């Protein structure tokens, strides 16, 4: 591959059909999950530190609206990133690597992750 080939990655000039939107969302959720690791490691650390720490995390998750929103947000990002990741693995296995297949997989990614995000919301609340 010629590394000097012209590459355009200027997002403002690229047309974004659904498969492109699902791809950029995969990247965005990845960045969000990385930032969210602060909360995840804090919760794991505190909950394992002592019975009081466990109660503090468990109490925050069941009573604090902001904590619930963060938990739901991170679970949503995780659900989406998971589903979009499986789409990647399907493409690696050469499944549905056509224009129609790509659109169908993108639609399935949106629908399946939307269901999981709603279920995550039900779980948190």
């Amino acid at each position: 591959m010629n590394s000097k080939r012209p590459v355009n990655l200027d997002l403002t000039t690229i047309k974004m059909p659904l498969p492109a939107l699902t791809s950029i969302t995969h990247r965005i959720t990845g960045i969000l999950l990385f930032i969210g690791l602060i909360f995840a490691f804090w919760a794991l650390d505190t909950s394992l530190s002592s019975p009081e720490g466990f109660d503090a995390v468990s109490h925050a998750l069941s009573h604090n609206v902001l904590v619930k929103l963060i938990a739901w947000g991170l679970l949503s990002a995780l659900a989406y990133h998971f589903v979009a990741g499986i789409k990647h693995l399907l493409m690696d296995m050469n499944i549905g690597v056509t224009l129609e297949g790509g659109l169908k997989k993108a639609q399935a990614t949106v629908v399946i992750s939307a269901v999981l995000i709603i279920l995550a919301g039900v779980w948190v609340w």
Partner: protein
Amino acid sequence: MVTNITSFGRSGLSDWLIQRVSALILAVYTLFMVGYLLFNPGLDYAAWSGLFSATWMRIFSLLAFVSLAAHAWVGLWTVTTDYLKPTAVRIAVQLVVILAIFVFLVWGIQVLWGA
């Protein structure tokens, strides 16, 4: 072939494989944790700390944390090389990312063995 001295495996193919293997490990760990929490609704400290004091769980968790470090680096390296064109800015952000990954990894090990 795309080569770049900041890429994790020094080659695109190596990074590609690392990203898939780490993704599978993280997927299994995620399913396990979600399943464990779903099937133990009245979880208490004794059961929770008991789970994380088991050797197999510490090995499983450390495997997941190491996979997380590799996965996050390959992913964020890809995103930063795509969108952060000025070299100084890109390297600066990548250094912050590496530092954060290192902190998370040490923090994770401390959580697993420190308590």
